[in-house]
């Protein structure tokens, strides 16, 4: 078990490595790069641009810049080109300029140790800004996923049990319809009906903006704010999960143990739910990885429409304002969460399914 877990984690390392390269390359290749994003405006003089570039260490070779971003520069003790940014990868303190004192190390810790640098736009630590927004995204994501599972699973089971019946047909049509509805349009229409016409629900936000300090009250104190965004996200989950569950249940229903249970004379509901549904739910464990990417992608749109102060909206804003440290941090955190999700689902799958053995 532990061996299997370790192997899966080791297998994930090349993927993580690929993601850091990809995300670094994007910033490096962007037209104008970070300097263009920092010194926005036509009137910025050339010498100031050069000073910004030097401050970011952009005159160093690419691999040094990548290493500095990935691992930090607090262990780098050598500034070879005099741009005041350490670039010599030496673990020992060296006296380069010969004044008898070792040069000071850099102050970046690198993304490996959770230092994502400072936001270009807000001039604040990216790590703490993300920390402030994670809870809002998790709240929305977890609520909608929970609703999606609690509604989607029984719907899928019923559709499979009554295959080709009216319930199956209706849920099949609804699943295709909700897959095809653009979620931003659904969101806008809900805001139009419930926020603008009926004035029954707030048009956006996480809680009353008049609550100035101390943050939002707990979830149950502001369900009105959660309702619409959760509905938008949960319908998608119900559509996907009910189809998935139906297919899985149909697969289980053709198994020998189901026929045995029926022929023993057990009641239909006992067979369907005790023998069938429990086995059919096993493949749901493989859903965790894709669910995390889906949640984050969905959050980007839903949070933007409903002005929900979470990671998705933060990322969309950062992309528009070319705030590269934020964009890269969100990509890396999202990717780590996804890979973690995939590993977790593999392990869970192996744990729940008695047919899988580790040796």
């Amino acid at each position, binding site marked *: 078990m532990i061996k299997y877990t370790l192997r899966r984690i080791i297998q994930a390392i090349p993927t993580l490595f690929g993601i850091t390269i990809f995300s670094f390359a994007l910033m490096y290749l962007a037209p104008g790069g970070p300097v263009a994003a920092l010194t926005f405006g036509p009137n910025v003089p050339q010498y100031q641009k050069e000073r910004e570039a030097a401050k970011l260490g952009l005159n160093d070779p690419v691999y040094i810049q990548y290493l500095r971003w990935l691992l930090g520069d607090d262990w780098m003790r050598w500034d070879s080109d005099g741009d005041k940014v350490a670039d010599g990868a030496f673990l020992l303190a060296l006296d380069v300029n010969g004044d008898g004192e070792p040069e000071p190390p850099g102050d970046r810790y690198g993304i490996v140790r959770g230092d994502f640098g400072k936001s270009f736009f807000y001039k604040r630590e990216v790590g703490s800004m993300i920390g402030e927004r994670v809870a809002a995204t998790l709240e929305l994501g977890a609520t909608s996923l929970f609703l999606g599972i609690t509604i989607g699973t029984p719907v899928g089971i019923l559709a499979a049990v009554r295959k080709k019946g009216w319930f199956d047909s209706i849920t099949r049509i609804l699943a295709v319809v909700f897959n095809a509805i653009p979620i931003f*349009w659904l969101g*806008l229409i809900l805001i139009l009906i419930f926020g603008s016409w009926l004035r029954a629900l707030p048009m956006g936000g996480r809680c009353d903006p008049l609550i100035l300090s101390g943050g939002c009250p707990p979830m149950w104190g502001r369900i009105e704010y959660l309702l619409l965004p959760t509905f938008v996200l949960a319908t998608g989950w119900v559509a996907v999960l009910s189809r998935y569950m139906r297919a899985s249940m149909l697969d289980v229903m053709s198994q020998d143990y189901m026929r045995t249970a029926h022929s023993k004379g057990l009641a239909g509901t006992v067979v369907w739910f005790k023998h069938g549904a429990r086995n059919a739910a096993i493949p749901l464990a493989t859903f965790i990885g894709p669910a995390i990417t889906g949640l984050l992608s969905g959050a980007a749109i839903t949070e933007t429409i409903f002005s929900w102060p979470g990671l998705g909206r933060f990322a*969309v804003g950062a992309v528009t304002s070319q705030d590269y440290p934020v964009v890269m941090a*969100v990509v890396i955190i999202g990717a780590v969460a996804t890979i973690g999700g995939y590993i977790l689902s593999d392990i869970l799958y192996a744990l729940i399914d008695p047919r899988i053995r580790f040796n």
Partner: protein
Amino acid sequence: MATTVARLDVEPKKKYEGRSLTQLAVSRLSRDTLTLIALGMIVLLLLLAFVGAPVISSVLDVSPTRTNANQTFLPVGSYPHILGTDDLGRDVLSRLLYAGQVSLSVGVIAAGLAVSIGVTLGIITGYFGGIVDDLINWVIATLNSIPSLFLLLIVAAVLRPSPTTLIIILGFLGWTGITRLVRGETLSLREREYVISARAVGASSWRIMFVHILPNLVSVIIIALALDIGGIILTEAALSFLGLGILPPTPSWGNMLSNAQGFFTKGVHLVIIPGLMIFVTVLCLYVLGDGLRDAFDPTAKD
């Protein structure tokens, strides 16, 4: 009397005998009303966008770009602005149809690109296996670990958005799913007898891959294409809605909706109509894809 009995005996056999999978699929499709309606709707939408747009603009003398400060927020049913006007007094119907040209072309071309890349890579990885397979699987695992919309947003922000770059982005980032599908199919196809006999008579690997294996993937490819076009139209709309896809003044269904966001109370039709177009188009494509899957299903019984 005797002939009737004989015919009854032969009829059910003839249903499958001597008919290829494609012939069976066509005959199944011709009886599937829902799929035919979806197909008809798609043809209608294409005709409206590519033929209807210029015709309607010239007949009603409306233009998708001409602004008119005196005729803003006209409701649906005005003349000559049948679907009303937007915040700048531009005609909604002609904007909608020209936007359809953009959204449909981006969807079709990008899906074609994604499917071509996916099929090629899928056949190669499935057929050769080994290090090529590992390498491409690594790329797929990496791309799939980044939330897809974030990935698209970032690439769209780095490259300057235009219909062409959007096609390239959506095409080059959308091939992972079909690659996996085709790889799996190829893994089983390469063990078939006709592949083994082709190899025995000395056919090259490329010949086997593209002459013997590819034709057997046609149904997989057609289904993937229909579903991918729908998915890509949705994604393009989402990107344009967030301001990183098709940029104004070029109309697209996504950026029309994004523009309408600010005029909730003044022009409800501006919110409803573009979204409805996306919804209907994607719905028809999904229904068509599902119908094709059922029609091409070799295990299905009539």
